[in-house]
């Protein structure tokens, strides 16, 4: 019985000329919520994209639920950064959420009533059912993030990879996303979130992985966010970050 949702071994990724990830080993057990933290340019998004097969690694392996990525694709949902998409696109909230179902459907099958029901439920869960027919370009940042989340819910995945879901969203959306992720976890899902706010890591995640091109540490949050590790990852900035971690001004 495999208890790992995600297993990254000796992963090295080179973006053009400079390595973005060096020899990263990471194990994510099933049913936890992990925060992926690190300074800008530490390779957090790169790691997620490599896991999703969007970037080809230079060396190393990625296994999702014990299998190479291609074989377990349908069990993973990816929520990209909100800014990666052109929100001027002519589509309604429901259109976008419905896109999550296409991974299940065959070549050119149209989504049936069941999928529509699924989508409606997902929108309900993110609190957008009233806005189902609204064009996406009229949404606020937080609402856009919720649409992305609804799309991922429709995928009915077992592993969710989210890239900065709390970036630039309002407080209401933030707590909604958090509740939602927690309920997904209680239902047996595994969640990996790229996150940059050190202050909230301890409240939000069971485990953390600290990246700085290579993996500095991973495991329970308290073991990862040690002074030594933070200094290694953030260098000179670490002193002020330590203050943030400890909640002292």
């Amino acid at each position, binding site marked *: 019985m495999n208890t790992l949702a995600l297993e990254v071994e000796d992963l090295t990724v080179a973006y053009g000329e400079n390595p973005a990830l060096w020899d990263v080993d990471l194990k994510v057990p099933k049913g936890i919520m992990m925060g992926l933290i690190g300074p800008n340019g530490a390779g957090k998004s790169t790691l997620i994209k490599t896991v999703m097969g969007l970037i080809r690694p230079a060396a190393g392996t990625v296994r999702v639920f014990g299998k190479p990525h291609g074989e377990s694709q349908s069990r993973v*949902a990816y929520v990209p950064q909100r800014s990666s998409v052109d929100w001027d696109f*002519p589509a309604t909230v429901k259109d976008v959420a419905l896109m999550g179902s*296409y991974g299940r459907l065959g*070549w050119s099958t149209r*989504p049936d009533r069941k999928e529509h029901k699924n989508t409606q439920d997902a929108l309900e869960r993110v609190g957008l059912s009233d806005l189902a027919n609204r064009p996406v370009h009229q949404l*606020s940042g937080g609402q856009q993030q919720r649409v992305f989340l609804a799309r991922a819910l429709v995928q009915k995945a077992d592993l969710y990879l989210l890239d900065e879901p709390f970036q630039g969203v309002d407080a209401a959306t933030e707590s909604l996303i958090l509740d939602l992720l927690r309920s997904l976890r209680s239902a047996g899902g595994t969640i990996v979130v790229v996150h940059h706010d050190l202050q909230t890591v301890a409240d939000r995640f069971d485990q953390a992985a600290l990246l700085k091109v290579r993996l500095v540490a991973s495991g329970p949050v308290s073991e990862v966010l040690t002074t030594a590790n933070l200094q290694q990852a953030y260098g000179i900035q670490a002193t002020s970050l330590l203050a943030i971690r400890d909640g002292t001004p």
Partner: protein
Amino acid sequence: MKAMDGTILAISYEINPALVSVVLGTALLGLATGALGSLAVLRRNSLLGDALSHAAYPGLLAGFLLSGTKSVGLMVLGAILAAAMALYLTNLLGKGGRVRPDAALALVMGCFFGIAMVLQSHLQQNPSAAQAGLKDYLFGQAGLLLEEDIPLLVCLALLVLFVLGWGWSRWKIITFDRSHALSLGIHVPFWDMLYSFLLILSVVIGLQVAGVVLMSALLVMPGCASRYWTTRMSSLVTLSGITGAFLGIGGTFTADELSWPPGPTIVLLGFIWLFISYGAFEIRRKKRALRQPFSPGNSFTPPPFPIPGKAPSNG
């Protein structure tokens, strides 16, 4: 069948029967390019059609040079190959950030057209009678559309509609969010190739009607105008196709009435329609000023129903 319909039409409305095939032809072409072009607008490579049409012209001439006669098959093949080569070169040069993509597009377009000029001047030296019609491809001669051209255009329109409808969900996902499409396991490069192929095919077939210079307008205008009327991709593509077809019909009739060249007339009509669409959009927007609706540009509008609590922040 089509011809018979045409004759009936011609009799009942007292229209010049020769015009019927022209109208039908431009309508079919407008349908195909309008639907396809709306995708180009969404993908932000509207000018690709322009580059492809410029690049197809030397291929056309080379096909003529090789066959020595006005053999349509060889010319179309040459045009398709040349356009595909230009597309490949544009992508190759624009990749890696060493040459800016816009410069790559302009350069490939200019150079391919330079080749066309060279070939054309070479062709002019041997006064083979058949070459007289070659220059029609520069500005397009919709008036020369014949009944036997119609089946080809019907096939093109059907092919475009079929491929768009067949992979509709994929087109939608890829156009909206490429990385999501990849993460779902959609083979994005394949769909890109398919799209380029359709684009090249319609540009090459459209050259005879619209000409090199005006081809891009047929692709871009219906999409841009329809963008003002709709907020869903399915209706955008449908409306663009219909707009394209009506522009073809309206432009041909107008051109015939005023004895203007048809290609430019279609383009001008499209431009007018674009302004009408924009005006209508502005009027509707002002009527709903309280709800602060959108502009299809890169604007961001605050949520219509603000969430109680914190205001949305960016940062």
